[in-house]
């Protein structure tokens, strides 16, 4: 009996990501969610600008490539034009939390019925490791060689907490993929974000705390330790908003 194999919703293309990059794990979790919810054939993904720009080669469903940060706006249009389709976006922190913050916040405020997968690795990966809005205080990057100075560059944005303060969104959660336990939990939460859309509940965002071994200058295993020691204390995991569950509890 096969216990584990590649999900059907991933193509046979070889991933271009660096060795040990957790994008591959998150791609697989999204594909597993598409398989598990049975929406293959009507799922449409929106790819970001960033390392995951070539996600359209990897998901075995229709994909659209959005301008930098505009994936939630493109997804809004797709969902309103084709309400029967299941629309998801896959975005990094340079895409969603920086140039695309406006589109993200307003899509959440409008409670658009889309699923957003937000990969937070605290750095700009594709462009060579510059400081991102989510880089931690004191974190060394190409553009903060002495560590992020909060007096000059400000503080990191905690996207999940910020969006959970809005009345609009249905479901906001933060997960991580730094160990087997967290990957299993991330799988459940991402699947729930897809189920919410199928049930017509509204905007679901899953923030996935991830690593960037190349630009952090660490081995893949060391980068996952860094996630546990530095990232998760600053970005605590958990479900920040679940409107249906809150209403059911009343």
């Amino acid at each position, binding site marked *: *009996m*096969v*216990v*584990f*194999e*590649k999900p059907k919703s*991933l193509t046979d293309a*070889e*991933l271009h*990501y*660096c*060795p*040990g*990059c*957790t*994008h*591959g*794990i998150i791609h*697989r979790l999204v594909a597993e969610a598409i398989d598990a919810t049975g929406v293959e054939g009507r799922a449409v993904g929106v790819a970001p600008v960033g390392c995951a720009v070539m996600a359209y080669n990897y998901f075995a469903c229709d994909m659209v490539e959005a301008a930098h940060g505009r994936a939630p706006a493109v997804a809004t249009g797709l969902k309103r034009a084709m309400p029967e389709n299941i629309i998801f976006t896959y975005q990094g922190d340079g895409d969603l939390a920086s140039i695309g913050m406006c589109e993200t916040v307003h899509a959440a405020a409008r409670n658009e019925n889309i699923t957003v997968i937000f990969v937070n690795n605290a750095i700009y990966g594709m462009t060579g490791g510059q400081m991102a809005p989510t880089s931690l205080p004191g974190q060394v990057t190409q553009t903060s060689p002495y560590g992020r100075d909060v007096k000059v560059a400000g503080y990191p944005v905690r996207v999940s907490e910020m969006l959970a303060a809005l009345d609009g969104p249905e479901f906001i959660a933060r997960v991580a993929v730094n*160990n*087997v336990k967290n*990957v*299993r939990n991330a799988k459940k939460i991402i699947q729930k974000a897809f189920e919410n859309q199928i049930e017509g509940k509204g905007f679901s965002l899953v923030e996935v705390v991830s690593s960037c*071994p190349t630009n952090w200058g660490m*081995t*893949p*295993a060391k980068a*996952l330790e860094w996630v546990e020691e530095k990232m998760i204390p600053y970005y605590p995991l958990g479900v920040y908003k679940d409107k249906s569950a809150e209403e059911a509890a009343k």
Partner: protein
Amino acid sequence: MAKVTFKTDICKGCGLCVEACPKHILGISQTKINKKGHYPAEMLEPDACIGCASCAMMCPDCVITVER
């Protein structure tokens, strides 16, 4: 009887499966080199495998298939 198979040609030798294995029976090959130019992961003690699929859960490249 658990069986783990590696698609060696797409492995990037990142070692996350080696770290994830609770039985510590995976390793990075010191002798083989794949077509991508990486030293791939390999099973060192197939008989000790419990088929938990922890390695496959952590593999970013879907290299590993687990059967039990």
